[in-house]
């Protein structure tokens, strides 16, 4: 063979790299590389650069001069400010313990008993997810506040302070913990219980030796998630915190109240620490967590036990009553003409035009913003998760995209919002034009809620047969054609799930947007905050209820649409 001559047997490194590169310079490779680069650049611009900007500003004074650690020294030597740190941690501890305990028992009732009415209880338990966090605080005011219906029954001095915050935030974080723990409990292999029974262990022993250890990673993960939520939430503490200062409200005061952006940056960095720590804990848990479910596992079927089921029924009823009480009081108070003097019902409080706060326009804006977040976010998440999982080039870039997509879970909404002010509100930044528009609100919401969406999509891609791309290559069909014809339809349910998650969260969030809205882009959740601030508590409740009903309505329509759509398009699932 004439082509077995020597030149090929010792190619120089440069020429073989060049050969390789030129050989892969076809249309598909170029598209793939651009795709990865764009995804990376978007994440850098919307996450890394703003956070870096925040860091820079924390070591500058108000005039932009570098002052090193002076701001931090200032902060730490001010007991009024550092008191917030201990307050925050204390709040985090108490609220997390309460929430996790309640969520665990509820999850146990859902997965380990044959209790009657599970579906109903489950539906009620997820109500807090559809509300802005402020709603529970407002409701609490009407139940136990100074003019509250049951104000004598409140066991503490006042609702304004730690107890109020604990109640309000536990209400709001409850479903998050419930979902995580339920999933962990549901994934336990029934055969472990059978083995335990055969070996003669009673129910209590089985609980401590099988159930608890089995869901320990779920518990740790739920604890981390709830702690972060509690510690970084801004709305509840603002409405009902009273004199109990926490880091989240401090940031708000520094930025909005005192226009001291540098100090705001400092407090943001302080708040970042617990968020980052719990994030790392959660990452560690994800690595350790191996599914105990293999193809031979059985799902757990609880045995009959009237006593156990009765207890479960009572407990879940109590939880449901509390949740319903909160939501219905918020609704009732929004309809009461003038609490507590004129208790007749009317839609007075819904006449937002009459009040400062944003009016009906704020509500419409929220819908627009949430819809935009859903569309932009779902598209970006789908494409970047696809790049991470399915494009085989540039592994280091893919890993970077994945890491950057997971980091937002560690960044509190306020911190992100502040960093966006620093980064996008600079005259010499070409992206300055989006500041003050809907776009910046949508982008910050997408980034704020990016992680869950990204992980959902990555999981969906992991469940696909991984030989689809090689088959497509062998058939000489471009990868993007296969993406549209095969991958997209197969991951459709996950895409819908991400979409609804983004919409509901964009609708109800306060912390991600409170620094970024402008006169033209006032949002409903911010309007609630402002109206409560101004003393218009009933209108605030009204707007909060409006947000709730919108989220609920969209969720219901969504469920119906997805049910119909998936039935039609997913018939092949067999």
């Amino acid at each position, binding site marked *: 063979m004439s*082509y077995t001559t020597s*030149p090929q047997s010792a190619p120089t490194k440069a*020429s*073989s790299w060049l050969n390789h590169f*030129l*050989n892969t310079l076809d249309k598909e490779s170029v598209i793939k590389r651009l795709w990865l680069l764009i995804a990376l650049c978007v994440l850098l611009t919307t996450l890394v650069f703003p956070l870096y900007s925040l860091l820079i500003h924390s070591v500058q004074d108000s005039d932009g001069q570098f002052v090193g650690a002076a701001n931090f020294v200032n902060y730490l030597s001010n007991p009024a400010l550092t008191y917030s740190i201990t307050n925050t941690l204390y709040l985090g501890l108490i609220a997390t313990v309460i929430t996790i305990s309640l969520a665990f028992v509820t999850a146990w009732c859902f997965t380990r008993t044959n209790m009657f009415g599970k579906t109903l209880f489950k539906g009620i338990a997820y109500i807090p997810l559809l509300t802005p966090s402020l709603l529970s605080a407002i409701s609490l005011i009407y139940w136990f506040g100074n003019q509250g219906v049951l104000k004598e029954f409140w066991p503490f001095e006042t609702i304004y302070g730690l107890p109020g915050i604990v109640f309000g935030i536990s209400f709001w974080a409850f479903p998050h913990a419930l979902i995580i723990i339920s999933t962990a409990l549901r994934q336990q292999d029934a055969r472990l219980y059978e083995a335990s029974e055969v070996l003669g262990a009673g129910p209590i022993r089985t609980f401590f030796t099988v159930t608890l250890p089995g869901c320990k990673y779920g518990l740790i993960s739920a604890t981390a998630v709830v702690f972060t939520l509690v510690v970084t939430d801004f709305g509840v503490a603002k409405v009902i915190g009273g004199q109990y200062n926490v880091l989240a409200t401090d940031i708000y005061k520094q930025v909005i109240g005192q226009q001291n952006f540098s100090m705001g940056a400092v407090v943001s960095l302080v708040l970042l620490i617990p968020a980052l720590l719990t994030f790392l804990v959660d990452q560690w848990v994800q690595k350790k967590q191996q599914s105990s479910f293999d193809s031979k596992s059985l799902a757990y079927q609880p045995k009959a036990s009237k006593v156990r089921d009765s207890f479960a029924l009572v407990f879940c009823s109590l939880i449901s009553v509390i949740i319903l009480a909160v939501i219905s009081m918020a609704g009732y108070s929004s309809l009461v003409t003038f609490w507590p003097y004129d208790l007749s019902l009317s839609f007075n409080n819904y006449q937002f035009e009459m009040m400062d706060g944003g009016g009906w326009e704020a509500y419409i804006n929220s819908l627009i913003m949430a819809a935009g977040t859903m569309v932009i976010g779902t598209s970006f998440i789908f494409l970047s998760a696809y790049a991470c999982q399915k494009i085989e080039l540039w592994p280091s870039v893919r890993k970077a995209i994945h890491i950057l997509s997971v980091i937002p879970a560690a960044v509190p909404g306020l911190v992100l919002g502040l960093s966006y002010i620093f980064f996008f509100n600079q005259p010499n930044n070409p992206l300055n034009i989006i500041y003050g528009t809907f776009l910046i609100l949508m982008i910050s919401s997408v980034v704020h809620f990016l992680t869950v969406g990204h992980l959902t999509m990555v999981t969906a891609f992991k469940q696909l047969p991984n030989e689809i791309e090689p088959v497509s*290559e062998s058939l000489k069909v471009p990868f993007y054609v296969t993406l549209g*014809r*095969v991958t997209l339809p197969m991951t459709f349910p996950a895409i819908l799930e991400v979409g609804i998650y983004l919409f509901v969260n964009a609708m109800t969030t306060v912390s991600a947007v409170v620094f970024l809205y402008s006169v033209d882009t006032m949002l409903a959740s911010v309007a609630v905050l402002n109206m409560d601030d101004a003393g218009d508590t009933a209108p605030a409740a009204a707007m909060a209820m409006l947000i709730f009903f919108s989220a609920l309505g969209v969720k219901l329509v969504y469920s119906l649409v997805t049910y119909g759509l998936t039935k039609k398009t997913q018939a*092949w699932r067999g």
Partner: protein
Amino acid sequence: MLSLPKHSLPLLSLLRRVRVASTTLFKANHLLTHSVNQLANHSANQSVSQSPVLKTQGLMNKVTASVLTKKKMSPGQQENRTRKPSVELQGVNKYYDDCHALKDINLTINHGEFISFLGPSGCGKTTLLRTIAGLEDSSDGIIYLSGKNVTNKPARQRNFGIVFQSYALFPNLTVEENIGYALKSKGQSKKTIKERVNELIELVGLAKLNDRFPSQLSGGQQQRVALARALAPNPKLLLLDEPLSALDAKVRHTLRSELKQLQQKTGITTIMVTHDQEEALAISDRIAVLKFGEIEQIGTPDEIYSTPATEFVAEFVGTINKMTLPHDGQSYIVRPEWMELFNSPNENRIPGIIQDVEYHGASTRVTLDLDHSEISSKPVVLDIPTPHVKKMQFSMSQVAWLEVTHLDMCSSSIC
């Protein structure tokens, strides 16, 4: 044709690659193609390289031609058409970090051949297949497909069809849509595609299942769809990665003969990876036995079975007995079916005690513990036709005599 000094070869390869790249990027290549083609005719065996545009057209013409004329080329015809082998590997190595997965592989596969890569798990046979496909990069060496150097080319620029162990059918598309997948993306007319798909459905035996989804098919049916899909764009090479291992034994038998018939009908060069030696022996023209990333032996099934080149091959394919036969004192490899068992002694027979009698239906495997341990240190395994066993009434702990009846087949090459 020009004859050029050898050291200009890398320059020419580079020029050719630049031209291909520039075609893709700028789509203006007339002058360049012409001059490079002139330069490229430097070797007796090189055909004129075609630009990607012409190549695609050539492929489409082939598909259309095969639809319209139902032309099936026999292996002989194809082989005569071109003198270059279908697949050629020279000095191919592959490293995964520290692991040397493929060690200096040299291999030539001719057109129309059915070759199996056989070996235990982890021996590199799937790695080798994927390297030929371009789904893995080789660390070293050259790979030629139909005479073209494809070493650095990604899979989509090579010409092959592949069937994976898991079939990897597109679950949300019907059988018809799966098979026509490659054709649809080439922009052919619906009628052409439908005709071709029906032709393939008939070829693999899937009539009347056009509108089913993969989840509604049995394993064997899914296998056929995967095959039809891979064959639809008329590739020059068919790669099968353990295509039958996910199926029940009975289905496997039926399907493997169908596979062979299909291959002979279409005349397509086929490489099959398998760990099932029976399968490899039954349907391959040649077998390459691999161990730890190296090819231990390539040969016809009979060569592999009767004259194994190494001890590993001898032991991996079938069962062997290593015996020092008394008539000449030499060591031999003796297969179980090359011996017979008797009730009575004579000068050619070797005595022993029956240790085990294992019923295999058509034959029975008898393990004989020999009296003379210098003939064989381990008990000898014989495969005796069951009627003979019944007639002789062999049973455990009985004395019996074995005779090596096919002495001519025993090889001593590797002992």
